């Protein structure tokens, strides 16, 4: 099927005006996205990550036709989003984690009924999709509840269903698990995996949560300062960033720093010790080694967070 989303040297420059005095105004250009090029194939599930203000949301807004690029070429399903926004709208589903696309004061079902008519979804198809989404996302009891009364997790599920009713080819998810509890997160992730497998929906996911990516995406793109700094599998990202996971062990009593191969103690606090080891490596042999030699009470593994990985990667790039 080839490339479904194509960006060629896409740029977005914002003019920021700032008052510097009573009459003086300073004009400054902010390059939110800088000569960005990538392609996504149909059916791919891609994580799009980067620190705050890196240009993630700006990219998604250009891909949905909300913003017009300052330069470059951009196509989604062969459509130029900025020029044919409404035609593209039939092909895409969008979930903004922070704001809902549902009609705030009306019962959830009204938003779906309106989408049915507005997107001209055939009746049978609408019924079928709605039933399936209600079942998978467990929305049955929520359909008659006004959207403003839903909890964040419920609303998010409602939003995801709304974005998929019209069988979009692409689904953009902007922070879909932000603020959700563990159970809701797991449910949303499982659902997204299913949609991608069943319908072949292309998914582009921006997130702060590395676990979202780990569990969903085979490919990650990292953007920083408006530029693509990494594009590849998640494991490679850890390598590129030389990131480390942390094993926290609670011992029975205070001991001198433990000795294990391929890990180093980075901190000791009473009977608790922190061990850093490469993220690409399994924690199991490490734990086995420790358990055999030291009196263990408890342990836990901490994943590196995206900010840390990217910061490290960035530092390495700029270092001579």
């Amino acid at each position, binding site marked *: 099927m080839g490339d479904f989303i194509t960006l060629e040297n896409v740029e977005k420059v914002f003019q920021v005006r700032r008052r510097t005095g009573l009459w003086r105004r300073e004009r400054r250009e902010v390059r939110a996205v800088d000569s960005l090029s990538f392609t996504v194939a149909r059916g791919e599930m891609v994580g799009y990550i980067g620190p705050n203000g890196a240009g993630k949301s700006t990219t998604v807004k250009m891909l949905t*036709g*909300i*913003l017009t690029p300052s330069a470059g070429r951009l196509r989604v399903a062969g459509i130029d989003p900025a020029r044919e926004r*409404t035609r593209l709208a039939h092909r*895409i589903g969008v979930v*903004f984690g922070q*704001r809902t696309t549902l009609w705030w004061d009306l019962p959830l079902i009204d938003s779906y009924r*309106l989408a049915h008519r507005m997107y001209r979804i055939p009746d049978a198809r609408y019924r079928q999709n709605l039933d399936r989404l209600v079942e998978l996302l467990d929305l049955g009891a929520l359909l008659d509840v006004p959207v403003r009364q839903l909890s964040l997790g419920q609303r998010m599920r409602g939003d995801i269903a709304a974005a998929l009713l019209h069988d979009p080819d692409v689904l953009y998810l902007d922070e879909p698990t932000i603020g959700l509890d563990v159970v809701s997160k797991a449910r949303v992730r499982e659902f997204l995996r299913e949609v991608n497998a069943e319908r072949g929906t292309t998914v582009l996911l921006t997130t702060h949560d590395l676990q979202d990516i780990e569990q969903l995406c085979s490919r990650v793109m990292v953007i920083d300062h408006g530029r693509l700094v990494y594009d590849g599998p998640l494991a490679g990202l850890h390598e590129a960033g030389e990131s480390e996971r942390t094993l926290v062990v609670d011992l029975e009593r205070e001991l001198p720093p433990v000795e294990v191969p391929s890990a180093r103690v980075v901190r000791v606090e009473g009977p608790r010790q922190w061990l850093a080891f490469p993220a690409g490596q399994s924690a199991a042999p490490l734990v086995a080694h420790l358990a055999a030699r030291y009196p263990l009470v408890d342990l836990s593994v901490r994943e590196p967070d995206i900010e840390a990985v990217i910061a490290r990667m960035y530092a390495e790039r700029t270092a001579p």
Partner: protein
Amino acid sequence: MAEGRDRRIIEGVRAYGLIAGMWVRSTMAYRASFAMTTFGNFAATFLDFVAIMLMFSRVDALGGYPLPEVAFLYGLSATSFGLADLLIGSMERLGRRVRDGTLDTLLVRPAPVLAQLAADRFALRRLGRVTQGALVLGWSLTRVDIDWTVDRLLLMPVMVAGGCGIFCAVFVAGAAFQFLAQDASEVQNAFTYGGTTLLQYPPTVFAKELVRGVTFVLPLAFVNWLPATYVLGRPYPLDLPRWTAFASPLVAVACCALAGLAWRAGLRSYRSTGS
């Protein structure tokens, strides 16, 4: 090009109907509440007119117009404005939507943003204002002494439709302005609510400069002043040819076209600068 525009208009009207219909159905789920808010709307605007009636307990005429003739002006202005407010009064919320970013959610739907925005929170209770205006107009017609000719009779519905069009244009232009100044809904209110209040009084009570401004710059005078003075057989304070009394629909079309251009420019600037 023209075909694309026609399709956009059809799509817009369709989306407007869908969204407004949804709001009406949801309001009708609570009939008692609907009846009460509609009555409240009616009563609040009726107090407006009571204020004018009280004024007439002290004077016999305002700017040479007796009460029934002022009621005639009032009824025309209130009905035109009420209709426009009913149809697209929700536009004034644009500024808030730009500020909190929820405008983006309208941009990802397959329908024109203007139609979605105008139909959002479509409130049938605003019929209260229209009803009140129409009642005052009806009452005035039983009291004023009009020499009814065919052209004067025809002018009545033309005037209301044209006036509604002109107010709609003011609403859209005001919303377009909010793309630039996001907290300018008060400025918009000055022209919409302020405009209708102004038109409720005879043009003869205002200074010539103001009347000129309202005739040539922001042509609100075409809502009722110009056509109504013709129907009443009274002179207009400015020396204008007679046909201008019939120009409301043309002025309305021109205003809507200008407002449409302003809207497109506003939306384009939003889409190229972001929120």
